């Protein structure tokens, strides 16, 4: 009886893994297709679509744009999120509950709505579409995330650690720099990392708010709409490879160093 249940659960798990990996495997496989249609039969392997991607300056500059927007908007979100989380966790402020609710509110709103709102606002205000506008949108979606992660980690123990520093003569800015930031580093990093992930993959806000210079997902979307060929598979596979390298790098360097 028990072993039947065990076998069933293994089969189930393998089936789910299969489901999860199916599109990725197909994606990578047909990125190596030598002909134009990324469907069976497989005609590769060939690297021609990778060459095509790497020589496409719109794609490569979109990749740089995406990285730029991701890093800068995440940094902004993490700084704003950290400062406000610290403020709310450490000080009694009138209407604190309401304000915290306000900051986390965008978390419960679809990206499309956020993008639409900014689009309408920027139209009215005459703010031209640009990467900066998209970056602002990304901060809007990532700020509540960073805030929530960091705020939830600023517990009473952290309060006492800061008090101890103050008690030992540290002025407020030294408490922040020497104690709070290093102690909160894992949460700050987690916020930054997650923000990067979301920003890197975000489509609709960038789509609505950029004009010529745009981010990779939008450029991939354009690519999809400008002809059928495995170039899309090749870009997707490259993004995948780069992401994995980054994740493994973070995993090995930053996340490993957790105290026992």
């Amino acid at each position: 009886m028990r072993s039947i249940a065990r076998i069933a659960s293994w089969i189930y798990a393998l089936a789910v893994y299969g489901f999860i990996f199916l599109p990725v495997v197909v994606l990578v496989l047909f990125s190596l297709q030598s002909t134009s249609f990324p469907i069976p039969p497989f005609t590769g392997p060939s690297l021609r679509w990778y060459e095509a991607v790497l020589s496409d300056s719109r794609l490569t500059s979109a990749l740089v744009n995406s990285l730029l927007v991701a890093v800068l908007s995440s940094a902004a979100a993490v700084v704003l999120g950290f400062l406000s989380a610290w403020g709310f966790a450490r000080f009694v402020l009138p209407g604190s509950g309401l304000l915290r609710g306000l900051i986390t509110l965008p978390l419960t709103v679809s990206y499309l709505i956020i993008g639409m709102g900014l689009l309408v606002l920027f139209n009215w205000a005459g703010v031209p579409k640009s990467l900066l506008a998209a970056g602002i949108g990304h901060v809007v979606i990532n700020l509540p995330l960073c805030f929530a992660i960091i705020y939830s980690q600023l517990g009473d123990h952290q309060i006492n650690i800061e008090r101890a520093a103050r008690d030992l003569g540290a002025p407020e800015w030294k408490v922040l720099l020497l104690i709070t930031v290093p102690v909160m580093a894992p949460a700050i990093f987690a916020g930054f990392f997650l923000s990067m992930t979301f920003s890197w993959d975000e489509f609709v806000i960038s789509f609505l708010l950029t004009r010529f210079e745009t981010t990779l997902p939008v450029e991939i979307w354009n690519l999809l709409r400008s002809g059928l060929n495995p170039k899309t598979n090749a870009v997707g596979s490259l993004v995948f490879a780069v992401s994995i390298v980054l994740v493994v790098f973070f995993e090995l360097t930053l996340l490993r160093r957790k105290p026992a």
Partner: protein
Amino acid sequence: MSAAGNNEGARTGRALPWALVTPAVGWTLLFFVLPFVAMGLSSFTAQEGGGGTLSNYSQFFTNPAYWQAMVNSLQVTAIVTVVSVLLAYPFAWILAEQVPERWQRLALMLAVLPFWTSYVVRSYSWLLVLARNGVINRALSGIGMVSEPLQVANTRLATVTGFVHFFVMLLTLTIFANLKQLSPSYRKAAADLGAGPVRTFLHVILPLTLPGIMVGAFLTFVLCIGDYITPQILGGNNELLMPQLVMMQIGRRGDFPLASALSIILMAVVTIAYLACARWLKIERT
């Protein structure tokens, strides 16, 4: 000294704490609340020439083709949320309970790895997988399981598949975290008091992970109902969901007022879902 926290404000004066929270609050007001207000105002104007009008809303409520989009969206989102939870829960449970502890991290990493392909590309890849001449149909007819190819691509089923793929990964993460947070003694206590694995699950594990499931389900709901890419790529435009309808107003005619009104209506639905889940969505300090 726990109870006595939160007292620094009394002495540090008002300036510092406000200096800390104002940027974030201001940002949210300026780039979230204000846009929302702008969108709200815009929704009461007509595309040609300003002036207050309810025509955008009346258009939605009187034209079946419009409100059908909301019906479709709600149906798809409901199906996606339920199916994703049903698929992800057992999977997360197996990862958390059946897989040996030291392999769990790896197993989980593996499960979320596909997250790291681009979202747009992933949807497109599903289209190729599900196509009449795609991998699945080739494989199935290759082994003689089907004579006529399965018609999945460009249907609601394809949209749902694409969504479920994404949200199974997301929900597996949240439910897994939830299961791991449960003290093992709950499970032991239930077993000790005579509950078999099934009843332990039904009476103890499931209710205790329910809050986590609700958070995950809400997240699924919000992200799913607002997504444009997946239905647009996979659904074959055989029906429209709300985000497609919104984007259509912009993409075809640049009708921002109507797009705004539709967004506001979508937002209202999300808000109702939020209120239904609100008690599970609090952020607490540890």
